[in-house]
């Protein structure tokens, strides 16, 4: 009974994530139409065979924009999580393994970042380095470091006193080797599921930044930007909101189910 369910979560999650990856790659290779090409005649066109998701207020093909948007949202989220995870593992690992004053300093810096509302931090970083896809990744990435660092730290603290670490130490393994060859793989399942959850938080955070006008720059699309642009047309053309909204929800759902599947599997 139990076994069946966990695989079900995993399967549905994997299918949704797979679908999304197909869309990402499709968007990179070729979209049916130029996602930015405008056409007066197609303003607010309803879904049709030629334009399965219809067209937006500039007569741009919504399906092509969603393909481009999924790609951009994916890049932003992966980039954000990558920064958060890599920096988080390095800092958290050092803190958890060595402890002492190093731990104290890094964790205080961590606290400082953590104490900032992430939207405030993103606003400031964007004001300093200018708007754009990659700047958003940096801004969100920094905001994501503390929670990863904390998680990795506590995981490393737990693991370092286990027998296998002591054994490795006795055999003369260097600290770095113990940290990254021995502890990291053991801490991996815990980190993995929070990476997936982090990915989802990044998708939502990107949408929030787009809502405040500081995400991916127009005319390029991202799911968050499409959603917040479409808000203006909610009353008469709700489809413009619904398509990116549903795609975003499915994307997050897919990753969440996958995360559940992974953590039940460990």
């Amino acid at each position, binding site marked *: 009974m139990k076994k069946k369910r966990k695989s079900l979560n995993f399967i549905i999650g994997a299918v949704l994530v797979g679908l999304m990856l197909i869309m990402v790659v499709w968007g990179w290779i070729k979209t049916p139409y130029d996602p*930015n*090409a*405008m056409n*007066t005649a197609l*303003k607010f066109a309803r879904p049709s065979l030629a334009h399965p998701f219809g067209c937006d*207020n*500039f*007569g741009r093909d919504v399906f092509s924009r969603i393909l481009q948007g999924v790609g951009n949202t994916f890049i932003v989220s992966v980039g954000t999580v990558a920064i958060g995870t890599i920096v988080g593992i390095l800092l958290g690992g050092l803190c958890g393994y060595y402890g002492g004053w190093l731990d104290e300093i890094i964790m205080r810096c961590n606290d400082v970042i953590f104490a900032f509302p992430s939207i405030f931090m993103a606003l400031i970083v964007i*004001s300093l380095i*200018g*708007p*754009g896809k990659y700047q958003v990744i940096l801004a969100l990435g920094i905001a994501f470091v503390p929670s990863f660092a904390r998680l990795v730290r506590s995981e490393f603290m737990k693991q370092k006193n286990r027998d296998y670490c002591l054994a490795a130490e006795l055999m003369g393994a260097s600290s770095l080797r113990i940290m990254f060859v021995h502890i990291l793989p053991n801490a991996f399942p815990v980190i993995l599921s929070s990476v997936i959850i982090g990915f989802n938080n990044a998708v939502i955070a990107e949408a929030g930044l787009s809502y405040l*006008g*500081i995400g991916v*720059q*127009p*005319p390029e699309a991202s799911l968050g930007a499409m959603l917040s642009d479409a*808000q*203006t*047309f*909610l*009353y*008469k053309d709700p489809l413009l909101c619904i398509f990116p909204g549903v795609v975003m929800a499915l994307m997050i759902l897919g990753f969440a189910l996958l995360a559940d599947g992974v953590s039940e599997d460990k």
Partner: protein
Amino acid sequence: MKRLKKFAFAVVLTTLTIALSACGSGDKKGTASSSITIGIPQDLDSLDPHTAVAAGTKEILFNIYEGLVKPDSEGNLVPAVASEVVPGADGKTYTFTLREGVKFHDGSTVTVEDVKYSLDRCADTTAGDPLVPAFSNIESVETPDDKTIVVTLVQPDTEFLANMTTAIVPKSVEDLNEHPVGTGPYKYVSWVPQEEVILEKNENYWGEPAYIDDVTIRIVADADAIVTGLNGGSIDFFARLSSDQVSQLSDDYQIYEGTMNLVQALYLNNKVEPFTDERVRQALCYATDVPEVLDLTSDGKGSPIGSSMFPAFGKYYTDLSGAYPTDIEKAKQLLAEAGYPDGFTFTITVPSNYQPHIDTAQVLVEQYKKIGVTANIELIEWDSWLSDVYSARNFTSTVIGVDASNLTPGALLSRFQSEAGNNFINYSNADYDAAYAEAVATTDDAAKTEAYKKCQQILSDTAANVYIQDMAEFVAMNKKYTGYVFYPLYVQDLAKIKPVEQ
């Protein structure tokens, strides 16, 4: 186990009931036609009419304060606190007769001392420039008797009267930001920052009194919350809507259509490569398909313009919108001549809070692709725009709308003089400077008009900017009210709005 289940359900039910009990009690705003709730997109920056700078603030303060003269909806200046104006023949003196029995909102009568105090306050140069820049031309303000004010200028200026709309305030009030007192048809009641401003009818108004007793001005910062607020009935009136917003409104609203009275253009920094080259600027003008911009961003509404002036200026305005018909071949040829046969890449900086400008920029990006020019949009915060683009002139190009502070052509054209402090596009043209100087100096009306037209022609010929349009403005007002009047200036005249007779 049953009990547990029941308990859980009970709690869920209770919370649902709490949420639902609120239903049905939604209040209907504005049913009493003696009051109206209007929405404005940003908070006021000051209640002191002399230090307020934002156009959005001034359009509200228009209802509280008045000058010796005030504009009417035709753009003419009509006597207000003064009952009569006699300009001197030499264009150097203006003699005002104080209107009898005009009272401030605090009940005191307006005296010539109050007028002198108000004008002197705005002409004061101890903190650098005077509060009203044109007042640097004032030599003296004299009050020979208790109903006459004589303003004497240093240089003759036949258009000076336009600056006399400066608010007359009582000498006795120290802090106008805390205690705003004016002579207008509405008086101030309260202001909660970021929330609302409340005004009430001035019963002792000297002119035609307002129709509606209580006005609540609600600050609605978010563009989408505006539509929600209108459809939901929490706002009765909103000016300066885009066609996209209007398209989402319900039938409860009467839509008035006018123009925003501003010059929307792709402003080019004339000191930055490649826009130093006139041919490159002209190429962009030829590549711009203005009708398509209008079709895509505002259902074709808006007036195309070809220079830095909009039609509300009447006799001074000259229609140059046809100067650069869309011509891709010609644009490419000009680019090749200028040494950019394969095009180039540039950045369009746009303030992130102005969706109409963002929309226009997006269309331009697509249009310039056709001549091989790649434009990238960069959205920045309004305050970063002010300091980086407008003050520091550190930009390549920007889409923005420039409005006029009054209806003298100088309000729009003076900034393009080579040395003007607000010449943010770094435009520099000796012919232009000469033409503008002539326009200001001459007292002959026909010659003046001609010179101003020449200025516009030069801006167009040299393609100072890629001129686009005077944007369409939509005003939505609940059908319970009527009487909205457009002004050729940035003004909302609330005193003209009246409830519909039922």
